[in-house]
């Protein structure tokens, strides 16, 4: 039973290597869905496994056993490792809940502030311009959806590049991309191995909006140029700000630009094997977690004195 419950905890470690390869092999929207659904299943499996382990350990304690109407002591295999494992599982679950709660508070405060800032300025259509020397642009979900752009960003792009930028942000809003980002954030708190998957989801979200923008303005190179120019302008101004450690590999922005510079790929029907493998991992994770939970449930029923199921 314990080995069964360890599988959903170990499987997510296989996800980052797979997730990194998915965007190169699927259309951006397909990649976005494949990554997000897999991340949800993997996160669900690992939380269920942790919960089952913690519950089993809890029922070994006489006070909780009485609360659970256990008339016999709960019999589980590998008694000796169970208690430390259960304690660890309970600790990890608590930690995940705490960091998730903290992130939830910070994110919603950030969103509220961005919303308040946008609502202070008169809008034209869905555009809200903020007079600032720092180039920045983002999609602001909510009612109504907005796109927020600083004057410095507008001035570093020409008219057609601005149209590409707007098309990109509108694609975020119409595609409901903030939901994918929120789910990615949620799953990243459930298992540390899902953090790289969150980054892959973020990249997939940007790629989906890039391709939508290229379709709207009808020019892939123009869209690529707008992204490159905006990125250079943004970073040129950021010299005085705390910098994150430079990535060893090529960062997301050059990947996006390079993908747009390459010719559009014809749509493929077949599911790429890498996405299928990731999905298989995710399903396996949920299946083992569910089987483990059912076994524990049976053990509990026996301990509750029920016979014959």
């Amino acid at each position, binding site marked *: 039973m314990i080995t069964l419950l360890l599988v959903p905890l170990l499987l997510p470690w296989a996800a980052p290597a797979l997730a990194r390869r998915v965007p190169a092999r699927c259309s951006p929207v397909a990649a976005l869905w494949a990554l997000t659904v897999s991340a949800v299943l993997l996160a669900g499996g690992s939380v269920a496994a942790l919960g089952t382990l913690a519950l089993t350990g809890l029922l070994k304690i006489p006070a909780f056993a009485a609360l659970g109407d256990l008339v016999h002591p709960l019999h589980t295999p590998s008694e000796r490792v169970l208690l430390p494992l259960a304690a660890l599982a309970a600790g990890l679950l608590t930690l995940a809940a705490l960091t998730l709660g903290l992130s939830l508070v910070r994110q919603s405060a*950030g969103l509220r502030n961005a919303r308040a800032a946008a609502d202070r300025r008169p809008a034209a259509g869905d555009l809200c311009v903020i007079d600032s020397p720092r180039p920045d*642009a983002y999609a602001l979900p909510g009612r109504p959806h907005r796109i927020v752009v600083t004057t410095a960003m*507008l001035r570093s792009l020409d008219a057609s590049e601005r149209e590409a930028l707007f098309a990109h*942000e509108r694609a975020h809003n119409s595609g409901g991309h903030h939901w994918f*980002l*929120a789910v990615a954030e949620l799953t990243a708190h459930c298992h540390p191995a899902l953090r790289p998957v969150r980054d892959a989801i973020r990249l997939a979200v940007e790629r989906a909006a890039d391709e939508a923008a290229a379709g709207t303005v009808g020019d892939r190179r123009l869209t690529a140029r707008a992204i490159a120019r905006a990125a250079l302008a943004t970073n040129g101004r950021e010299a005085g700000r705390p910098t994150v450690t430079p990535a060893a590999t090529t960062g997301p922005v050059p990947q996006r630009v390079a993908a747009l510079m390459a010719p559009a790929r014809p749509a493929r029907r077949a599911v790429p094997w890498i996405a299928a493998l990731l999905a298989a991992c995710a399903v396996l994770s949920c299946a083992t977690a569910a089987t483990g939970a059912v076994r524990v449930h049976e053990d509990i029923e026996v301990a509750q004195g029920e016979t014959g199921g």
Partner: protein
Amino acid sequence: MTEARDERRPAGELEAAVLAALWAAGTPLTPAQVQAELSSDLARTTVTTILSRLHEKGTLERERQGRGFAYRPIEDPHGLTALRMHGELDRDSDRATVLARFVDRLSPDDEEVLRQLLEDGPR
């Protein structure tokens, strides 16, 4: 893009394009100048209609220039919105997760790659 297609775009998108052109210019623009600044082919009358609508909404202010008006965006009096926004940015490193930003931070290598891509592409 053909003129017919641009004229059919949602009014909100046209307003956004006009406001963006005015902010990018940084000086008051006449309808003819706005029309020249836009990437799309809009009729002058359409541009004039959008400008006066934005003026009525309080997004733009205008001044007499020759026989017509020159328009410019109404500024945030004390730059309060920008201050507030950037204060939030600097404090909140997690912002990227809720708000889908157009571009993220670059590493020095990334910057080099982008510069090369821009130089190679037609301008």
